[in-house]
């Protein structure tokens, strides 16, 4: 009877299904046009509207699907009919997969095919995004709909849940835990998904087979709280799991890091921004101390990134004066390496703490969680009007920016793309290069994490070749651009590991920047 119930729901909802699918395809068409022809304010506004319509349309469609044979209540005709509950739930799930998510998969896949990606890649990306969307949003929506009797209840309940989540998220540090904004955020997220999946299954089974709405609502609330709690997942167990999943475990075994006072104080380059340095948060405002470090055992063409550095300063009496996090730290070795690399690690000490202890000897302990990435591929695109497809960055185009000061590279790929990249402009005949720019927004998730707008990853980079003020000179500049190329290097994680640096005795004031 699964197919029979499915057909009944189709008969009742086909207009809705087609409307939502039409918006999804229209959205795909707009995104395709934007990819082909570049920025367009009107189309981007339209796209935002389509995204909003798709999410809400799909949400309403899911609720309507469930409410055709609502669970709570005592007046529904299906309750007195010989309808097997198993058939009913399977019919709803079939409809959910085929007619709610099917059009989304089709729209994403068609768009990727139109962009020139092979069918397998297009379909893989589309299915990957849909699975993520299901776990994140639509399956919980489906379970939620079974707890309500009609659309009014769903809307009122939905608003209530939203307000509850906002209030609770504030309790859970605005949803920002130790792993948030790191490459291992997926660990907590996966736990969230596992809990949500268990919750969804439990609610569906309880509702369809027992019609225990009150119990199901309590269970859903409890699971929701547990899911929110996963955003506060502690760093160490999450990183330990990431370590176990290293693609090339042991690749970092030779790498060591030590305090190296011989490097002297950090000298801030005049007029240059430190690579990878982020602006401190207001609550972290204080004095920045730069600790000189020496890395050894680094392989060639490698990027070492500190995903987290937990710093603890202890006074001579053994009292903890400061416990916090160090700034971003990235060490890159291009080309063949003799294994050594100096670096300074910045840490912002809160002003009252710094004022009090700046002259006193302190013990510093730093627990590093590192990720070693190695060069995976390098691509060269003509600096001007380049247009080519690469296996992992997808379809890329280069063009000069409007102010004619930089070359812009824009790429669009079906599915995941490398998240650590280095790029530079190179004059082919002479081999001259502009300074490389490095960007890394690590995401070590073993799956594609994207909800909107589609299953495509879009990225871009701009490399300057001219300083309008005339202060900076670039080895590769305007006249050489026709014979130059935009080189992009991609890096893939090899190993995740930890190291501990202990500095028995230093004085903070000695390590301020010059």
């Amino acid at each position: 009877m699964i197919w029979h119930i499915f057909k009944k729901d189709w008969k009742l909802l086909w207009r809705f299904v087609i409307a939502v699918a039409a918006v999804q395809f229209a959205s795909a068409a707009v995104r395709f046009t934007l990819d082909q022809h570049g920025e367009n304010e009107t189309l981007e506004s339209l796209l935002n509207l389509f995204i909003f319509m798709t999410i809400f349309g799909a949400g309403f469609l899911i609720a309507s699907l469930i409410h055709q044979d609502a669970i709570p209540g005592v007046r529904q005709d299906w309750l007195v009919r010989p309808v097997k509950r198993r058939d009913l739930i399977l019919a709803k799930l079939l409809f959910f997969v085929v007619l709610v998510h099917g059009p989304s998969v089709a729209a994403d896949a068609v768009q990727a095919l139109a962009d020139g990606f092979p069918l397998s890649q297009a379909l893989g990306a589309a299915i990957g995004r849909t699975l993520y969307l299901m776990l994140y949003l639509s399956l919980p929506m489906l379970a939620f709909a079974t707890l309500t009797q009609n659309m009014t209840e769903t809307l009122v309940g939905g608003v209530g849940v939203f307000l509850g989540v906002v209030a609770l998220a504030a309790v859970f540090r605005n949803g920002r835990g130790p792993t948030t904004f790191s490459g291992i955020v997926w660990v907590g997220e996966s736990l969230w998904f596992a809990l949500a999946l268990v919750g969804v299954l439990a609610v569906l089974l309880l509702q369809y087979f027992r019609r225990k709405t009150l119990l199901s609502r309590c269970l859903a609330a409890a699971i929701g709280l547990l899911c929110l709690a996963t955003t506060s997942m502690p760093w160490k167990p999450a990183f330990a799991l990431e370590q176990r999943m290293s693609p090339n475990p042991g690749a970092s075994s030779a790498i060591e890091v030590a305090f190296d006072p011989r490097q002297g104080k950090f000298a801030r380059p005049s007029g240059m921004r430190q690579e990878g340095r982020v602006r401190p948060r207001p609550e972290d405002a204080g004095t920045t101390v730069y600790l000189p470090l020496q890395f050894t055992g680094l392989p060639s063409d490698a990027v070492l990134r500190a995903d987290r550095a937990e710093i603890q300063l202890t006074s001579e009496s053994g009292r903890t004066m400061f416990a916090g996090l160090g700034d971003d730290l990235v060490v890159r070795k291009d080309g063949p390496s003799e294994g050594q690399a100096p670096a300074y690690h910045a840490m912002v000490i809160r002003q009252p703490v710094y004022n009090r202890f700046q002259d006193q000897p302190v013990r510093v302990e730093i627990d590093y969680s590192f990720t070693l990435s190695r060069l995976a591929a390098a691509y060269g695109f003509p600096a001007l009007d380049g247009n080519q497809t690469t296996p992992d960055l997808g379809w890329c185009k280069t063009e000069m920016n409007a102010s004619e000061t930089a070359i812009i590279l824009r790429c669009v790929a079906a599915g995941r793309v490398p998240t650590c990249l280095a790029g530079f402009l190179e004059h082919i005949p002479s081999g001259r290069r502009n300074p490389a720019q490095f960007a890394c927004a690590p995401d070590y998730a073993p799956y594609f994490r994207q909800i909107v707008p589609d299953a495509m990853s879009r990225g871009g980079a701009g490399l300057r070749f001219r300083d309008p003020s005339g202060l900076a000179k670039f080895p590769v500049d305007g006249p050489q651009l026709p014979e130059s190329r935009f080189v992009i290097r991609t890096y893939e994680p090899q190993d995740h590991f930890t190291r501990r640096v202990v500095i028995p005795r230093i004085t903070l004031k000695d390590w301020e920047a010059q």
Partner: protein
Amino acid sequence: MTAMIQVSELCKKYGRTDAVQGLTFSVPEGSAFALIGANGAGKTTTIKVLMNILEPTSGSARVLGVDSRKISPRELAEIGYVSENQDMPERLTVGEYLDYLRPFYTEWDRELERSILAQLRLPPDRKIGALSHGMRLKMALACALPFRPKLLILDEPFSGLDPLVRDEFMEGLLQQAGEMTILISSHELSEIDGVATHVAFLDEGKLLFQESMSDLTGRFREVHVTLEREASANGQLPKEWLQARTVGNVLTFIHTRFSEDSLGERLESLVGEVRRVDAQPMALRSIFTTLARAARDGALEGTRK
């Protein structure tokens, strides 16, 4: 006779409110059992429990021999259900919904379906949402009969129906009734008069009595006694004589355990010489009014069989 429905000490609470309290009754096979009571008496709650739409707080109900909490599609395929507030998919037409329901019932009779549709004058192309209240009830009946259920449960089926539609509904129902056991709830006595073979009376969630209709109508009489001399009704009258009053030498009361053989003798011993006795059968409505008053006055015990 086998009981198609057996309810035992059934209780259902909504929060702290007792909707049904300690209900016990049984519906014999082949009977047309009427569950009577005012609005809020607990009739619909009882029926929802029987259909496993609601779970009992305590006690049990067995329907077709199965605990109501374990009713499966197999039992539901043998139960027809019609309710005044039955939500059917409004955007389907009458015909589309029947098409949808048909495969769920192995015993569905297409010919019977057609004849019921024709008899009830239901337009197959009309959307359910566009049907009037009466038409919806007829639609519910049309969905409940074509599979020839063993048990037909009708929850306030006549509520809000005009007489013409009611008659059409009843005709449709009675023509198909056959061997079917029917449980019908109503707060309107005239609706079940001539239909019910058994009756149970519910008041504020409690069962006041359960009896076959023939027994009930057989034992209730409105008795007018003309005495030889003026008499007054005093406290010595039996409990089964209700609403006794005298006007001159005429004593009037309602006899709840009427038996022609013993009445004369009893009257003479209690009120003196009797000139004439006139015992009139009572209309169902009058019986229920009498019982309801007796229940209110705490005099119900004396009215039991």
